[in-house]
């Protein structure tokens, strides 16, 4: 009983702590940008007593982008946590399953055949690109499942097939990318590096249902991830419908990653690193690991995006690059410090 209490207490504390940091970062992020707004003015604006300019900057540009960062940070992190759990492989992440490559290929094809588009994305492409990305990601996931299916899907087969599909999409990607004109190539590179370019309220509304419905559902499914980790035989003996649960979980991972990549681009490393960071602080139980991963991912992406917006303002660094540049050293530090 003591032990049980202990394990419950610590995750709650960790999650509360993370949530507090997220709120803090959120305020700092609201204040900073190419146009600085003092904390007092931010609060004024939020309660509706700010100047028109502040209102425009905050409500139309900064706020939706930050909310998107939080949402897809959480989405990618959970997706990574599911994939690592289902495949029982610590190297698994949405990127490895070809979801990023599938989305990337769709977007690159779109840019390639839609040449002569004005730089700075036109309103048409801003709505078509996420749809293309989602379709590409879904296609990759569908292919993986088809090829990995053989009286069920074993974790190892899934990962191996994922690598194969990823390589195939990657090959097609580079062929088209090298045929592009330099300007389009640059645009594609920036997208592939992961940049939250779809930042307005429509996108928030587009992503919100995915994340807000799927994440709680995933957390509800967490115990199955624990059982699946014991190996298929034991899981079956414990009465889990292994194959069905695995398929459901995979679908969740793909949907979360696909929706995130569609608006955020190919943000690498986040889905890999967030679950590992979470595991270090709350341990391997998925009931607490999943929410902690989500908070980790949200925090990491919000902070990264804030830095990416400001460090070379007015030009922006793709957020995916900042995530790697920030996350990797810390991850390395953890590797060295924690056993």
């Amino acid at each position, binding site marked *: 009983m003591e032990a049980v209490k202990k394990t419950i207490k610590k995750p709650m504390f960790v999650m509360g702590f993370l949530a507090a940091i997220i709120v803090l970062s959120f305020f700092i992020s609201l204040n900073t940008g190419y146009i600085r707004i003092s904390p007092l003015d931010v609060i004024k604006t939020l309660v509706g007593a700010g100047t028109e300019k502040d209102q425009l900057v905050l409500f139309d540009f900064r706020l939706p982008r930050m909310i998107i960062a939080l949402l897809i940070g959480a989405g990618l992190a959970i997706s990574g946590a599911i994939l690592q759990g289902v495949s029982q492989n*610590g190297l698994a992440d949405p990127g490895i399953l070809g979801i990023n490559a599938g989305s990337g290929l769709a977007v690159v094809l779109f840019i390639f055949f839609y040449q002569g588009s004005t730089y700075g994305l036109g309103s048409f492409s801003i709505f078509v690109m996420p749809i293309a990305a989602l379709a590409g990601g879904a296609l990759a996931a569908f292919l993986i499942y088809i090829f990995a299916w053989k009286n069920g899907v074993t974790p190892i087969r899934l*990962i191996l097939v994922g690598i194969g599909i990823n390589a195939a999409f990657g090959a097609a990607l580079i062929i088209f990318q090298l045929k592009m004109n330099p300007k389009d190539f640059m645009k594609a590179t920036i997208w592939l590096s992961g940049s939250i370019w779809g930042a307005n309220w429509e996108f928030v509304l587009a992503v919100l249902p995915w994340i807000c419905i799927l994440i709680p559902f995933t957390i509800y499914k967490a115990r199955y991830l624990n059982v699946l980790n014991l190996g298929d035989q034991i899981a079956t003996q414990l009465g889990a419908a292994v194959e069905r649960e695995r398929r459901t979980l995979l679908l969740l991972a793909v949907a979360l990653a696909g929706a995130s990549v569609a608006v955020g681009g190919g943000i690498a490393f986040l889905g890999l690193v967030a679950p590992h960071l979470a595991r270090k602080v709350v341990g391997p139980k998925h009931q607490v690991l999943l929410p902690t991963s989500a908070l980790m991912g949200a925090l990491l992406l919000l902070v990264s995006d804030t830095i990416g917006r400001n460090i070379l303002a007015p030009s922006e660094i793709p957020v995916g690059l900042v995530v790697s540049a920030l996350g*990797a050293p810390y991850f390395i530090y953890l590797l060295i410090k924690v056993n």
Partner: protein
Amino acid sequence: MDQQTSFQEDTKKFKSRPVVATFILFVGFLVLVLGIAGSISFGAADIGLKTVWAGVFEFNPDLTTHQIIQELRLPRVIAAALVGAFLAVSGAIMQGMTRNPLASPDIMGVTAGSAFMIAIAFAFFPGTSYLGLLMWSFAGAGMGVCLVFAIGSFSKGGLTPVKMALAGAAVTALLDSISTAIAIHFRVAQDISFWYAGGVAGTKWISVQLMIPVAVIGLCLAFILARSITVLSLGDDVAKGLGQSTIVVKVIGTIVILLLTGAAVSVAGTIGFLGLVIPHITRFLVGVDYRWIIPCSAILGALLLVLADLGARMINPPFETPVGAITAMIGVPFFLYLARQERRGL
């Protein structure tokens, strides 16, 4: 992280198939020689096999065809064979050492380190010579590997396979993000992509000359190491129980990976899929004994890249298709077929 396998699968896992392996070595070698001859003969200008023979062994500098063979096609095809063998062998060692089917030589930070240095060279020292770029690239590969290995070694609990793989992923992400930022900022992204997607096109004799000693040292070390890798692939605890000094094997293994992959990346850019898929194919064919896996991987890797390079020139002449894309196109169907088979194991 360890695969939970049933007993039945375990017994399958420890099978070795020397007969198949010997067959692969001999027949594979013959096919490889044919492939090399074909690769010299086919191209923008077709050259008969007789002339190929003459051009290689009775070189006459006055004949244009002989010049084409000597200056363009011969170094290119030798480089293709060597690079293919290098990548396949380092992939096999990598997978054996880490016991992770996802491990490819790239994950040791070799490619990321090389790309990082190349990005710096393109951004800050435009007009660096071909040889200079090779050197930059190899230095970068060394840097990447040292980083990964150091992080893995200094971590609490020592250099476990998982730690090594994760350290590799972290270092790769870090270096890649910096090089992409440099590439975007200095507008050299496409130049860098061309350099890396170029494959063995335009390989000069100097690259081949640099690769020969690497081949001798690296491949010999790999063959010497083969038995220890087999033991290591059973797991660190088993290896220690059998009296193996795992750290020595890992250090030498890492040096081999650095030499082979570093040279391959410097000469041919990124041909990512090869180092990952060939060891899997080989294991499927010859079983789990690395004394067979390593030489057979070398042959199959060389064969795949020679054929892919031929394809790179033939698909859309006179333009080159990125060879990495073709290795993927050839390798993926194979790989998917294997992934569906039950017979596997590391």
